[in-house]
């Protein structure tokens, strides 16, 4: 397990490395550290503005991270930005975002520019309500068929995903962060979802959880035709509020 002082030291080393790399023309802290909300579990989120040779910069910084104790990494791309997520031997997570300098900027309030210049760019938004509803009923359809086919683990996968969508809808309703589960513990009545936890892969237990979850989804649907179809997925399910 990493210590806070180890994390702080690594962050200072990364800032120094950015400062001395001539291809890096700007850098920012992002995430909780940018707004003074770090705790002992926080990761390092670091954004680089790169004005040339971006592939070589990624290669060199990756080598640097492995020299510092990385044991693996995962890439997430959004447009032309690469988010390379490193897992350190200490279990510290370090996210380094490689931005073309022409696009470098804050996508949300957790952005603190360390040096260089940032651009005005579109802000990250909450997920789209209609898309969440659509995904919820889609996972619901496949939960039902998986249960009835006796595919317990597939059904569990569908139910877990369905719950994620329905809880995100609740987050939207209550105006808390609906991205990646960040606002779930801020919900007023998150315990309403305890009944959707699946205690075994037995069909009866899967049906029980599915029934509760379908009721919770129904509370999020305003369209009557859609509500009727969703209700038919688990007959007898009713809106929970």
């Amino acid at each position, binding site marked *: 397990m990493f210590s806070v002082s180890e994390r702080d030291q690594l962050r200072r080393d990364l800032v120094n490395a950015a400062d001395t790399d001539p291809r890096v023309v700007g850098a920012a802290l992002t995430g909780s550290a940018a707004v003074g909300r770090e705790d002992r579990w926080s990761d390092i989120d670091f954004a680089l503005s790169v004005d040339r040779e971006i592939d070589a910069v990624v290669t060199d910084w990756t080598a640097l991270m492995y020299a510092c104790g990385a044991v*693996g990494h995962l890439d997430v791309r959004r447009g032309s930005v690469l988010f390379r997520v490193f897992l350190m031997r*200490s*279990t510290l997570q370090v996210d380094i975002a490689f931005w073309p300098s022409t696009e470098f900027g804050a996508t949300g309030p957790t952005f603190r520019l360390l040096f260089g210049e940032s651009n005005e760019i579109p802000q990250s938004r909450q997920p789209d309500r209609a898309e969440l509803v659509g995904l919820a009923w889609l996972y619901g359809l496949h939960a039902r068929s998986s249960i009835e086919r006796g595919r317990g683990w597939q059904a569990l996968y569908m139910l877990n995903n369905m719950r994620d969508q329905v809880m995100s809808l609740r987050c939207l309703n209550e105006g808390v962060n609906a991205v990646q589960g960040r606002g779930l513990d801020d919900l007023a009545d998150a315990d309403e979802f305890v009944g959707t*936890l699946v205690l075994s892969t037995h069909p009866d237990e899967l049906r029980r959880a599915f029934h509760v979850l379908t009721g919770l989804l129904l509370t999020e649907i305003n369209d009557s035709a859609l509500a009727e179809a969703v209700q038919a997925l688990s007959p007898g399910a009713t809106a929970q509020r």
Partner: protein
Amino acid sequence: MISTSTVCGGTLVRSTHPDELRRAFHMLTGLLRTQINDSALAQTGRALCLGAAAQR
């Protein structure tokens, strides 16, 4: 012989109580380690689990 399905059943969470989440996380991390060939990465997976255990 214990089936994979039985082992994975231990990763199901019965509540959101921290102890229950740690128990399931511990089992799940152990299962993840069995899928990792790289020794350094596997060791880090073990450290993840110990980090959680240390918080009990």
